[in-house]
């Protein structure tokens, strides 16, 4: 019996050490140089994004109703159980009704085999266009997408990549997100909130492709406006958030009591970051800022406690942008190079505009809706 106990203990310890070494990969703390912080530049960047976003037309106006008449867009969401994704898909269906184009959605739970089946279904149902919604990675379904292309069905990938990332050549058009700017805003907040004395723990989640540009944006902003700010990075992949994030935060704060901001690339990580800060006894000394705009996290901003700033995105505008790009393809037009997806920095000062309690998609104004209708010659 004793031998068994030793065996179990050794096994569990080995597994824990190996798993800990590999998933929670970390980089040492760095600061680029000892130069002074440019607080004014960081503040100017924030000021630009705390206002209600203005609409910028993605391209020349066109007759969207004619382009979409009698057509069906097959929408494949990345994971229908994620609220943001589901809201985007629902918005896509609703806005498509205004235009008069059909949308067939294939709800799924994010498994690659389900994506493959959904893509095959787009072919079998003879869809006019396949739209990948909110993070279906084309690299994981390239053989299936090649079949779609061979069937003459155009493919649009929405809100998956930043402009600077490698784009899969099978896809006809993209609606890129401005993830780098989201990262810059997070860093700018940390710089101004600490008056140029930021000592931050950046938490990435590299299994999601858009984690890279968000983190790149943070690094770029620190390098530009606060080279003396100290940054440490730890990667914790999505499936490990529940088990590793809290302990990662706790041990990082114990190892470096000077850390004053935790900056996760996605606000879903805050659920585990906050208990980490609490259990390290760092409430009131350590704060957090992140990106996405989940309503429950915006509510935390309003409470003015640990979470001080969230960069949010409007799922309804993402849906409209995806529809615009799809309709341009169906109309035989050149795809838009930039759909100008909007970002808004929510702080304690403006978070009330997102609703009390916050609602997904609220707080971004209505300019986008009117703007798209005008672009589609429906307004």
């Amino acid at each position, binding site marked *: 019996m004793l031998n068994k106990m030793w065996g179990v203990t050794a096994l569990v310890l080995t597994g824990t050490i190996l798993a800990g070494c590999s998933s929670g990969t970390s980089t040492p703390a760095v600061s680029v140089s000892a130069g002074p912080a440019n607080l004014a530049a960081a503040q100017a960047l924030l000021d630009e994004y705390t206002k209600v976003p203005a609409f910028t037309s993605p391209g020349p106006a066109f007759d969207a109703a004619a382009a979409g008449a009698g057509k069906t867009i097959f929408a494949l969401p990345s994971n229908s*159980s994620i609220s943001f994704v589901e809201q985007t898909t629902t918005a896509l269906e609703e806005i498509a009704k205004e235009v008069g184009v059909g949308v067939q959605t294939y709800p799924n739970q994010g498994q690659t085999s389900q994506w493959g089946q959904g893509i095959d279904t787009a072919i079998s149902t003879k869809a006019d266009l396949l739209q990948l919604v909110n993070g279906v990675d084309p690299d*994981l379904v390239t053989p299936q997408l090649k079949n779609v292309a061979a069937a003459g069905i155009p493919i649009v990938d929405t809100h998956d990549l930043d402009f600077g990332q490698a784009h899969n050549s099978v896809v006809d058009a993209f609606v890129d997100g401005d993830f780098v700017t989201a990262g810059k805003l997070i860093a700018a907040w940390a710089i101004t909130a600490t008056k140029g004395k930021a000592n931050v723990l950046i938490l990435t989640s590299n299994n999601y492709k858009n984690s890279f540009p968000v983190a790149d944006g943070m690094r770029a902003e620190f390098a530009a406006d606060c080279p003396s700010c100290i940054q440490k990075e730890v990667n914790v992949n999505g499936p490990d958030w529940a088990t590793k994030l809290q302990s990662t935060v706790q041990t990082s704060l114990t190892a470096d009591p000077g850390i004053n901001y935790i900056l996760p690339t996605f606000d879903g990580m805050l659920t585990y970051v906050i208990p980490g800060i609490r259990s390290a006894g760092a409430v009131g000394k350590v704060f957090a800022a992140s990106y996405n705009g989940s309503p429950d996290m915006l509510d935390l901003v309003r409470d003015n406690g640990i979470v001080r700033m969230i960069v949010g995105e409007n799922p309804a505008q993402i849906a409209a942008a995806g529809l615009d790009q799809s309709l341009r393809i169906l109309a035989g037009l050149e795809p838009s190079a930039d759909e100008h997806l909007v970002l808004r920095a929510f702080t304690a000062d403006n978070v009330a505009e997102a609703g009390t309690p916050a609602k997904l998609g609220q707080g971004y104004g209505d300019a986008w809706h009117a703007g798209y209708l005008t672009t589609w010659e429906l307004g």
Partner: protein
Amino acid sequence: MSIETAEAVAAEVTVSGPEVDPPPAAKPRETARRRGNSLQKWALVAIWIVLIAVFGALMPQSFLSAQNFQSLLGSQAILVILTLGLVLPLTTGDYDLSAGAVLSLSAMTIAVLNAQQGWPIWLAVLAALLFGVVVGTINAVVTVLVGIDSLIVTLGMGSIGTGVVLWIGNSQTISGVADALVEAVVGTRLFGVPIAFYYGLLCCIVVWYLFEHTSLGRRMLFTGRGPRVARLSGVNVTRIRFGSLVASSFLAAVAGVLYVGTSSAANPGAGEPMVLPAMAAAFLGTTAIRPGRFNAWGTIVAVYFLSTGITGLALLGIPSFVQNLFYGGTLVLAVVLAKLARRRYVRDDAS
């Protein structure tokens, strides 16, 4: 349902030993019993057909299209092979919870070696399969030779495997695997169905033959039902359990090869989400074809029954949480009905 429960149902349901003519008074009971067994044997298949009919009536254009069935058959081959692998140790009384991690490890090994290191694809596949055997051997050594519960050992090995996957893949999706593998898995089609489906079918036939037509299969069953009795009967229980765990990991690695061949890429979290559906299918499979036993055809019926339901719900545009309800509800209901049916037969026999 535990392994023991499944096997207990098996012990009750299956009639072992030479067939003898029942006495005249027992004939109606025997007929009723056989009818009951047949009903139980084909109940899941019948429900599957009803399910297809219902979805077909609701969506004749999309659901009943040949392409939908071709896609359904091809896309589940990975799950079929993973589940068939799990069925081997389940039959001998062990769990393999590391199968998902082995799938990911196999897929990531191929992607790293082929797409990043430039190894020929066949060599990368060979290395991936070797990794599967290595993990299975470690599982077997610690479980069988050291004597630690397979649940704990394979859970630990799964965690280690996941760590290695994240390490070698730098926590990222790696794409750009050679087209030759894609061609060999989904590029080639037979009767419009991707060749991957036939790989799954082949594995199913091998496992069926093993269980039904070899003494090794019988010994595996005896080992699972009562290792002590099996040992006293001269069965090399250690070797049987050892081999099952290695074979399970090997098949998980094969599933990983198919995963890369389907996606032309590997992502670090590929395998873990498949373990529960595979377990569900393995246990659901014990209610069909050879009721009460983990069996090859029951397994494949269970996998395709579940995926038919999920596909139909997705085509109807039903919210995704209903897929969870379907998965879990079907499993619990099927196992409960099988148990209730069995009780009724036993009661009938007793009266």
